[in-house]
């Protein structure tokens, strides 16, 4: 059973299009995240949701809009895609135990904008 799954794994699209990436976790965690990993391998937080509520929203263009229909799902919608959006996007989840948040990552979605 996959703990954190993402679809699609690969996404190739033209500039200006709108696309969505989906994420689901079956771990029962209450917090989910979207990270972006650029070509230099830096992994940066974009958004974090706790029990369907947005708790972290880093400096991300408002073309990116996360949606959490329930605490097991966190989707990422991107409008008007730009070349610079090409990256690998990772979803993750964690359960806040108060002792540190071990995060479980999905396999990533490699987005290529042409």
């Amino acid at each position: 059973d996959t703990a954190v799954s993402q679809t699609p794994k690969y996404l190739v699209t033209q500039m200006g299009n709108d696309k969505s990436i989906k994420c689901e976790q079956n771990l029962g965690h209450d917090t989910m995240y979207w990270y972006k990993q650029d070509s230099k391998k830096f992994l940066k937080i974009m958004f974090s949701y706790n029990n369907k509520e947005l708790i972290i929203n880093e400096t991300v263009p408002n073309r990116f809009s996360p949606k959490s229909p329930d605490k097991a799902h966190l989707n990422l919608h991107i409008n008007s895609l730009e070349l610079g959006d090409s990256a690998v996007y990772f979803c993750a989840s964690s359960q806040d135990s108060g002792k540190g948040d071990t995060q479980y990552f999905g396999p990533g979605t490699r987005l290529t904008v042409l």
Partner: protein
Amino acid sequence: SQQGEEDPQALSIQEGENATMNCSYKTSINNLQWYRQNSGRGLVHLILIRSNEREKHSGRLRVTLDTSKKSSSLLITASRAADTASYFCAPQRAAGRRALTFGSGTRLQVQP
């Protein structure tokens, strides 16, 4: 910033040798975590060490933490070709912010 910075950027060793990677950070922390990323995959959690701990072991992994120097090290003993991956450290603050901040990692290549 809370970001950890891994050193060296790249490391190449022979199978059976030990690999040591270092991490430095700038703020006070509640814990520090190490993750591994195989090529084309998501990150996998390896070990978490709390700020009141100095050393922790998990199988062939040994992690140390020196909060006075704001540094941590990850030692992989008796390395295997399957250990080839990028390794990231993530210092985490005490409260509030749950998201982790990663550096660019150490790329470890274990030659068979």
